[in-house]
């Protein structure tokens, strides 16, 4: 393949057009690979390489977007790959970034979670068992995408696995907490969506005026879902307004 470079540690760097390169760390959704992507993304952010304008980690890869400077330090795919390879080799393979623990209150079922019972039936569980598995520890934000502040969180217990819905909804309510393929997403605003909705959080996922970050959740955050009642949901939403 044109522009694919590997080193002894099997670091795969590919071009994605002439202004992006992508470093690949694996081909499955896995906590260790996810961690690796995030620590490499952070190291690259710190390195502030010439011409690099954005760094976008995902489940198994880190994309580096750059543009020509036209100066002596002009980045090309070859020169940038070289700098990145040197840099990545200095990061210990098992380095884990300090992660925040974030609790996300969720009102499960009822009007907020129209698919809870269907998900329970599909998995051969009771709705309460679904809630218990969903509120268990061990979830991490792998990446954000699709819309501002929209997180992809995983991985849920293998018993709580449903595919995407056959017919996506055209409008999912903001705050909806939905699942597919052992992952959880939360809709920051009204969006179309094909995942099964288990409940809703009263928290605001994205706010341009929030400091230091507009997004409630950051890549790498440890997430713990906490079941709340409808009354608590209303009270918390009121408090946000």
């Amino acid at each position, binding site marked *: *393949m*044109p*522009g694919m470079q590997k080193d002894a540690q099997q670091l795969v760097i*590919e*071009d*994605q*057009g*002439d*202004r*992006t390169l*992508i470093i690949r760390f694996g*081909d*499955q*959704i896995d906590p260790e690979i996810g961690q690796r992507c995030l620590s490499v*993304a952070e190291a690259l952010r710190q390195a502030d390489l010439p011409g690099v*304008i*954005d*760094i*976008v*980690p*995902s*489940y*198994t*890869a880190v*994309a580096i*977007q750059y*543009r*020509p*400077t*036209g100066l002596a330090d*002009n980045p*090309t*795919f070859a020169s940038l790959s070289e700098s990145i390879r040197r840099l990545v080799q200095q990061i210990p393979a098992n380095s884990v970034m300090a992660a925040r623990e974030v609790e996300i209150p969720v009102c499960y079922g009822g009007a907020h979670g129209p698919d809870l019972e269907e998900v329970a039936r599909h998995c051969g569980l009771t709705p309460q068992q679904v809630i218990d598995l969903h509120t268990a520890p061990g979830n991490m934000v792998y*990446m*954000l*995408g*699709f*819309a*501002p*502040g*929209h997180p*992809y969180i995983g991985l849920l217990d293998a018993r709580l696995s449903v595919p995407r819905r056959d017919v996506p909804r055209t409008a999912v309510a903001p705050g909806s907490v939905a699942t597919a393929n052992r992952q959880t997403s939360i809709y920051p*605003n009204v969006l179309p969506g094909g995942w099964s909705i288990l409940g809703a959080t009263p928290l605001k996922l*994205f706010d*341009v005026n929030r400091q230091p*970050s*507009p*997004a409630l959740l*950051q*890549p790498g955050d440890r997430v713990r879902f906490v079941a709340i009642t409808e009354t608590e949901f209303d009270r918390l939403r009121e408090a946000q307004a």
Partner: protein
Amino acid sequence: MSVHVIKPGMLTTFQDLGRIGYQHLGVPVAGAMDARAHRLANLLAGNSEDMATMEITMSGPTLRFDQPACIAICGADLSPHVRNKPIPLNRPIVLKAGSELSFGERRYGARCYLAVFGGFALASVLGSASTYVRSGMGGWHGRALRKGDQIGLNINMMSSGLTALSRKLWDIEVYLPASLSSSPRQTVRIIKGAQWKEFSPESCAAMITQPFRISPDSERMGYRLQGPAITLSEPRQMISEATSFGTIQVPSGGQPIVLMADRQTTGGYPKIAHVAAVDLPLLAQMLPGDTVRFEPISLDHAQELDVKRELAFHALAGHLSALRQILASHIKRAA
């Protein structure tokens, strides 16, 4: 003192070089669809390249300037005029207070960029004044312009000596190298993508030999291409990862989508190719119904072309220092 929107036009938004640095939080870059025309308009109006310009789509607005201003319009030719007098593209133009700028027949392209010396008075949202309409973010209240909007300008120019100023600016020769002019090319150059070899040989051949039609639902987010179905040899699930401006992704239906300025930051479809950065402006000036053909080039060649354009911009910016000095001397100082 401001610009009054008498008529908003079809889709008029403010754009700069994009909301960079927040893609890891899912925030789309947005920014000018035709960055070449946007940068050019800024330089010709005496600005730095990253100041927000008005991106005007297909049918232009009518704007009244209630203060003198120096403007430049680049990109699509939508027949701009003041009263009944046509205004040339790619030139600095001095407007007197009370001038009404309007647009007429579309002669070429889809989008033009209106820059005003000193820039429009807009708040920066996450480091950019670009409008991202889907989230109501940035630009002018996060939306396209409407009738009755009044947008402030950052700089007040002196009302006296405008005729002399106009003459002085006219005397500055603006030489646009070919790499900065609107491209007469008939093909859009692409670089093969990571999954190129996973597509069927027929699909790969079709991609670079067959014409594609830009479908009616194409807009700032992406251009959908109608033509021969493009399919993988073996269907497979992809894990979501970052996308780029110009990424050509192919959903299972076989209809490729070129991701444009308002693209989502991540996607999970196979990528057959990527439009070379140097030809994104060409694509940005195409309209639904237009036909596009693709031509593969090497990554090295694409990057050479990209640097060449960058150097041309540097040279032009240097060349226009006289223009910036002349304009700076006409700024009205606060009493």
